[in-house]
């Protein structure tokens, strides 16, 4: 049976969350039983380019281990930024 790791992102998703973000997904990348990593944007009201960079890095690591990456509960300005960056090409959106 496969597991999903849901990472709840903070109100301000920028480089200050880098260390915690990496810590939250590192185990899931190694753990074979985790098949999907979900980024929960319900609290996010701001994200910058360094956050997009972190998401690209997570995508690359997940892709190398055949894991699915998903974005959920994204809205408003945050959704516009992700759309402009065309992140639907990297992440599944729910």
């Amino acid at each position, binding site marked *: 049976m496969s597991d999903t790791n849901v990472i709840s992102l903070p109100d301000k998703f920028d480089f200050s969350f880098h260390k915690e973000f990496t810590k939250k997904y590192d185990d899931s990348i190694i753990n074979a039983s985790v098949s999907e990593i979900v980024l929960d944007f319900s609290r996010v009201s701001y994200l*910058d*380019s*360094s956050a*997009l*960079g*972190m998401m*690209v*890095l997570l995508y*690359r690591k997940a892709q190398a281990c055949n894991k699915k990456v998903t974005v959920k509960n994204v809205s408003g300005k945050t959704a516009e930024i992700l*759309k*402009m*960056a*065309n992140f639907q*090409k*990297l992440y599944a959106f729910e």
Partner: protein
Amino acid sequence: MNDLIVKLLLVSNDYAVDSIMNDVFSSNNFELNVFNTFFEAKLKEKTKDYSMIIINDDMLSDESLFSFVLEFSSKYPIIIVTDKEEEKNIDKYFKIGISDYFIKPLNLKLFWCKVKKILDDDVQRKKSKEESKLLGELMHQHKVEESIAYYVYNHMIGEEDKPDFLHSYTLSADNFSGDIQLHSQSPSGSHYILLADATGHGLAAAISVFPLASIFKSMISKGHSAEMVLEELNSKLGDYIPPDRFISAILIELDLYSQQLKVWNGGMPTVLIYAENNMKEKEAESENMALGILGEKEFDTNFLTMPLPKKGFLFMYSDGLTEQCNKVGEEFGEQRVFEVINKTSVEVLVDSVMDKSNSFRGNMPVNDDISICVIDFEKI
């Protein structure tokens, strides 16, 4: 205080005080050197690195004590042990830098605690001074390295003569800009304009755009197609820059032979194309991933293609423009950009948008690099 031997210099000719001091500092961690005159003390001072000077001044003249303290108080903590209680006297010596002043008879417990505190504070002061000196050296080294980087940056990316139809401006959030605007003309006469925005800002972002500038200029000058230039940029940036970095970009091709305008937008704000009456005619939204993320197979080089307008203009910018905040945290936004465009002639459009942006920002710092580029079709 640590376990090293702490060397103290005592200037005194009162044997009773010498004896008390020897008792106070009898532990193994202290070495107390006693001298009867300032002359002897000065000679000894030259050969040893003392942590503190204690002066018992009963037998010493006021003039020689004053000049001695004046000479050494910037170098060592100095404490005076005396039987002179006059406030004027106390004030005088504190003004020239003594660390403490004890009236005899001494309260030995209080004396010991204060001496220990002065010595500890002095150790911290010296440590801070060394750290401050080291910081100064590092800052100087950083400035030298930054000036070298700036030289390379200017020679690789620095502004060249732009054609008359191109109006552009970049406001950096730092000494180095992660935004870049390049123009190059191919052997066939087509003009290529690249507006790119690397992740972040400052030197780290600027480094990412170095390879982009050299590849772009080299490939255009050899007559490669816009599609090939994009593929090469995407591939090389994927190899050269860290995996959590990428470069959003807009590539414009003005094909003068077939009279076509081609726009590729990867992760940048929508490119706006206006007719001569400042009416919006077409938009080129970001429909592609930024450069340096996707592999060769997934990377898309589809351009928006349309006849090259004879009049009107193209307006493009980096997200630093619309995301700049004012003092109440409000973003500049697209609407303010549209308002300026609607009432401004193309010749002064870049300046007008920047004036509006700067006045909106007020005294707030520039959050991110801001770039604006306008192509005046009539002047091509």
